[in-house]
């Protein structure tokens, strides 16, 4: 059995930011998961009606998968290796070499083949992230950020998971830092990342992204009242909530994580706007949870379930609160 020394497994809320935080920690850079999430500008909202996932439109509460791994090292100015493979055997051999040499490597995998998941959660979702920390005979030891202890996966299953086909196929992606970042200028990074997030959420020139996307989704939800198909309504609302609460850590969860980032950013800079925005972002997260609760009542066919108009209004409130937060954060650029 080979195992990477000095690795302490940590439990995270979201796979990609968790993997990045753990890899950085191993390099001696202490950035918490919310800091990674916030500084990489991963908070987002997207409702893409033309992209179907299980015949349901795609709803996402963060940037597309792979955003953190691909963009964040650059923003930190950290030398970083990202490698995809054509040759599956070569990919596995190189992974073994990494483990032997004690290098911590992050992998992109499909949740369908990660056998240690609850069977009900093993959807064809190709953008899960894990860290390999050792090998024991026919098993790899996996530090999966969303599980609270070390898991095991068979060599053959990991190979399948790394080379699953379909939407955002991992293509064997392996990634690891080549060294620590040159220097961490936190105030500059905080300002830059908030600026990018604000710009996207308020001004993205597309109707599906940011606040516009939330309002568009609200209109679609309101229109559900005109549809006679009860099954479709149920599955549509269920899909929105599943994307929110279950895949990674969802809308409420991502909002709370961003609020936590704003709080840490306030501690690092002392800019009072950040503290206020953090409190309001917590409020937005709570509103997203109310929305999810209302949807679940419809799905459960609860007699006091709200009408689609009412649910659409809850969504509009989420959008309005978030709009105020980003407008508040915009003032950061002028004052600092």
């Amino acid at each position, binding site marked *: 059995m080979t195992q990477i020394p000095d690795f302490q497994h940590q*439990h*995270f*809320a979201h796979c990609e930011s968790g993997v990045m935080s753990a890899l950085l920690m191993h390099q001696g850079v202490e950035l918490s*998961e*919310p800091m990674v999430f916030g500084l990489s500008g991963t908070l987002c909202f997207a409702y893409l009606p033309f992209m*179907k*996932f*299980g*015949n349901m439109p795609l709803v996402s509460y963060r940037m597309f998968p792979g955003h953190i791994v691909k963009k964040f090292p650059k923003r930190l100015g950290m030398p970083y290796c990202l490698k995809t493979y054509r040759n599956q055997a070569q990919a596995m051999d190189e992974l073994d070499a990494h483990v032997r040499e004690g290098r911590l490597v992050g992998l992109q995998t499909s949740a*369908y083949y990660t*056998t240690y*998941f*609850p*069977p*009900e*959660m*093993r*959807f*064809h979702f190709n953008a899960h992230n894990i860290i390999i920390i050792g090998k024991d005979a026919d098993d790899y030891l996996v530090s999966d950020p*969303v*599980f*609270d*202890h070390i898991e095991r996966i068979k060599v053959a299953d990991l190979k399948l998971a790394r080379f*699953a*086909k*379909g*939407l955002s196929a991992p293509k064997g992606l392996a990634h690891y830092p080549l060294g620590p970042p040159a220097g961490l200028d936190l105030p500059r990074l905080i300002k830059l990342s908030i600026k990018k997030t604000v710009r996207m959420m308020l001004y993205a020139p597309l109707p599906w992204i940011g606040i516009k996307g939330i309002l568009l989704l609200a209109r679609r939800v309101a229109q559900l009242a005109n549809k006679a198909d009860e*099954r479709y309504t*149920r*599955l549509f*609302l*269920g*899909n929105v*909530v*599943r994307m929110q*609460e*279950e895949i990674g*850590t969802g809308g*409420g*969860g991502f909002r*709370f*994580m961003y*609020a*936590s980032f704003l*709080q*840490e950013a306030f501690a690092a800079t002392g800019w009072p706007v950040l503290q206020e925005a*953090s*409190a309001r972002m*917590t409020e937005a*997260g*709570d509103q997203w*949870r109310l929305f*999810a*609760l209302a*949807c*679940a009542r419809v*799905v*459960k066919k609860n007699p006091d379930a709200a009408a689609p108009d009412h649910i659409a209004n809850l969504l509009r409130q989420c959008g309005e609160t978030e709009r105020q937060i980003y407008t508040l954060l915009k003032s950061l650029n002028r004052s600092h």
Partner: protein
Amino acid sequence: MKIDDVPQDQIRTFKGYGTKAVYAVDAKGRYTKTATNGWEVEEVVLRDVLADFEVLAAQAKQRVLQGKSSPIEFFVYKRLMDIPALAQAMGIARWRVRRHLNPKVFRKLNDRMLQRYADLFRIQLAALKNFKENTTIDPDS
């Protein structure tokens, strides 16, 4: 969300699989990472979509036994996929997968193609070829 409000509904899906981490506010207003064993809301929406897949699989089973469809249609719903997702995961065109749902075409498929389907569904080749009333899958495989 305050730490006291973090749901602890002990949902069925996570039983035996540990907890999830979430960020919540403590009594002094500071964010901390804490654990949850699930929220009923997520359980409700997950069970709903799983029940929908079960219905689709049961209907597919009837069609297969009546000779109106091929076993592929049953396994695809059992594995929580739909036809476009199956085509993507197989790396072949959608129309070819649709064609393979025709029992006549299915019977003529060679073992190499069938093995690819069987590997994707994580079942034995024989289970795909000899579909019976009691055919099912091992959820843990």
